[in-house]
């Protein structure tokens, strides 16, 4: 595979994580072109950090029709994930032989040889959350049962070959994500991820990459034992550690890591990663609120109003710019007519 374009998608809050991804990926695959999708408004002071990437695209420049209306339908995670397929499709259109997406909370350790091999043999490469059955009741609940709700494959990684099938997949996925990319597992939806349960059925040439060294995370540690040899190489079940996904480290990911780590290495990796992320932080950006978390006057957007906007065509017809503030705005209307939407959610 001659040219690989690799991309990630993040808000300023995840910039430090994305920089750790960029640096660790560059160390093993300097030949890959790195594209950053910033799903946030441009901010002063970011240029030096963003120079780590070969190319930076801001979400507003991605060509999404009726962009403000699109954004208003989504919370931060939904927006970041909904734009991934369009980003990947763009990389294929630009002529890359293969396009790879990696979540910003991934770090790369050893060369991703099995990914490249899979991409030679298949048009679409996916990694499952788990690749070996569990036998412990809690691990089944935390692993397999969760995958049944949130998706069999983890879409923190996907690789697409630039051929008819690959492009068809990217277009299909883009269509689904841009029409309905919600965090609603009870309805059979989980952002961009749950759709991909269908991929092995809908498309030919799909590889399920079962390399235990790829996409190691707290959700598969119960069946993936890490090791280090005398030369300092890290491995998982005997395969080189390609990339580790630090899902929710610093939160529930820590609990899961402690629960399933089979030795100290996952704890060490998580501690190392948190240290690296802290060191990569850009002052003033890491704790900056998401640009589209509030109306133009800074009032936070209640999640219920995003829901109403998504569900009620009349609202979308009436308010061209849902982020506007002041008289005649969606915000003013909601404050007057739908005060219930501003109430804190039950149980909070």
């Amino acid at each position, binding site marked *: 595979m001659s040219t690989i374009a690799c991309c990630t998608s993040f808000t300023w809050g995840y910039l430090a994580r994305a920089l750790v991804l960029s640096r660790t990926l560059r160390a093993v695959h300097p030949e890959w072109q790195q594209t950053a999708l910033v799903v946030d408004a441009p901010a002063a002071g970011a240029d030096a950090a963003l120079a780590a990437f070969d190319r930076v695209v801001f979400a507003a420049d991605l060509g999404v029709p009726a962009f403000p209306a699109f954004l208003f339908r989504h919370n931060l995670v939904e927006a970041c994930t909904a734009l991934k397929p369009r980003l990947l499709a763009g990389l294929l259109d630009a002529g890359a032989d293969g396009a790879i997406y990696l979540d910003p909370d991934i770090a790369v350790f050893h060369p991703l040889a099995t990914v490249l091999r899979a991409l030679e043999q298949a048009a679409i490469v996916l990694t499952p959350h788990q690749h070996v059955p569990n036998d412990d009741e809690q691990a089944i609940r935390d692993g397999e049962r969760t995958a049944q709700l949130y998706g069999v494959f983890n879409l923190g990684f996907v690789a697409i070959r630039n051929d008819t099938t690959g492009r068809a997949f990217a277009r299909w996925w883009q269509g689904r994500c841009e029409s309905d990319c919600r965090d609603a597992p009870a309805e059979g939806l989980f952002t961009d991820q749950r759709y991909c349960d269908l991929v092995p059925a809908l498309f030919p040439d799909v590889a399920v990459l079962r390399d235990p060294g790829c996409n190691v995370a707290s959700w598969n540690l119960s069946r993936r034992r890490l090791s280090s040899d005398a030369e*300092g190489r890290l491995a998982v079940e005997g395969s080189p550690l390609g990339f580790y996904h630090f899902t929710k480290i610093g939160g529930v990911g820590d609990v899961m890591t402690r629960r399933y780590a089979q030795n100290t290495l996952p704890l060490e990796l998580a501690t190392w990663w948190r240290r690296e992320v802290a060191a990569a932080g850009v002052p003033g950006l890491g704790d900056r609120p998401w640009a589209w978390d509030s109306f133009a006057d800074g009032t936070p957007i209640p999640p219920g109003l995003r829901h109403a906007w998504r569900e009620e065509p009349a609202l979308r017809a009436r308010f061209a710019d849902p982020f506007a503030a002041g008289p005649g705005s969606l915000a003013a209307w909601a404050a007057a007519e739908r005060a219930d939407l501003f109430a804190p959610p039950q149980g909070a």
Partner: protein
Amino acid sequence: MAGDVFADLARHVDRAFYRHLYPDIAATGLDPVAHWHGHGLAERRRPNVWFDTAYYLDEYPDIAQARIDPLLHYVRHGRGEGRRARPRQASALATLAEARPAAARPVGYDAPANAPILDATQLAARLIAAMAAHAGPLARGGIGLLVAASHDRYIDVTGGIQLVLADEQAACAASGTTHLHLAPAIARLCLADTVDPPGLLQVTLDGVFQGLVPAAAAVEAIAAVAAAMPERPRRFAVHSPLGHRTDALRALAEACGPDAVYWLHDHTSLCEGFTLLRNDLEACHAPPAGSMACRICVYGAGRAEHQARLRALFDAVPFHVLAPSRPTLDLWLARAGLPFASARVCEPATLAAPEHHAGAAATDAARRDDGPLRVAFLGYPLPHKGWPLFLDLATALALDPGAAPLKLYHFAARDALRPMDAVTSVAVRVGAGARLAAVEALARHAIEAVIVASPWPETFSFVAHEAVAGGARVLALEAGGNVAAMVRRHGAGRVFPTGDDLLDHLLSGRAGEEIRAARPPARPMLLPGQGSLGFLHALLGADAR
């Protein structure tokens, strides 16, 4: 408190542990069981070494909401329900939270307050006086002045390097050699090359502390001694470079002349993380500096610079490298890539069979083969010495007293003891004047097995040697370097692949029989070495004295 509640709690609240951890309670004279149940649990205090109150209440909010005694709940119900008394990998997480490069740790101030600061002239005068005090001409090949550098003032600290230095100084005293020891005034477990201004050195002359001296003045004083007493040769030995500037060590080596010695008492010459434990947790085997294991280790970022400074020192000084054991030498030869004049094994102490030493204690009055197996931990209660494994053993016995017939002991300096009801604490301090204090204490208590579960490649381990000389079998880990090697070489115990294997063996109930069957009829003798002096005398073809 109902009688049955008190009875259950009395079995699991560790009174000695509680009083030691909470001196405020000890001072009141309250019974820890009553205090725990009445106040301690609400204050989230720890009732024993294995129950983490805060964890249990946070992990199981139903217990917190029910406002019941969490320890009582655990022993009566929680354990059977599969609940945990403390987080998984609790000790690893605690170690990881503390792991950081030496330069990021607070410095230790080691020099006594108000110590006098000597200049070059004053130090030279004291050296010349000390050397002149050794009557008569030196024997052929004798050394007039041995200058030794290490990381702390050995006369006041208990540890392996310090014992070697004490033995070296004693050998010097017996050979007419003056012994000058230099340690940094501020203790650091890293090289001090970038410290500005250059620190002072502590001066110990023939085992007596003199004061402080700037490194340049020490070099000048040695040069003055060389000019004044050219017939009395000088030599230099590095026992540890930590806390020193490598340029100062080089200058000292050059002032002392040829045949400089470098000891591999730890793995500082391979990595600043001198136990070769990645993140202070797992044996790393000193992989190449740019390896992935180094990248995720707290010592990785500084390793290349650390190695470059040592390389500059070794390039400038053709050291004779002395390894306390064969595994240490083999590892160093395979991994260091440093130039050297010679490299060999030089054991800091040796075990000698009793039949070869008239007067050796062939048997002990205290020795007996009855009752529960007497198992000890000897030394500082530190993770890299295997203390967490000993605590795991104590915990297993606390939760299931009938698991195996074992009686546990901890031998250490008084301030290093960690009192627990189920462990007999024995204060013992080994030093120059009480070289065999640990050996004798082990024999006195008829200890049958000592757990030396160091997870890192120990270079020698006085503890393991003291255990054998004390009449005990050594239970070691495969990763333990010379501990495992000496156990195998002397047939002195058993080596286990993992800590779990070691615990399983002890708790199997068969350990006692096996250990008692394997004990030799008499204890070997532990004979101290001569530090660098024995090697230097051999090198120089010195006449025996």
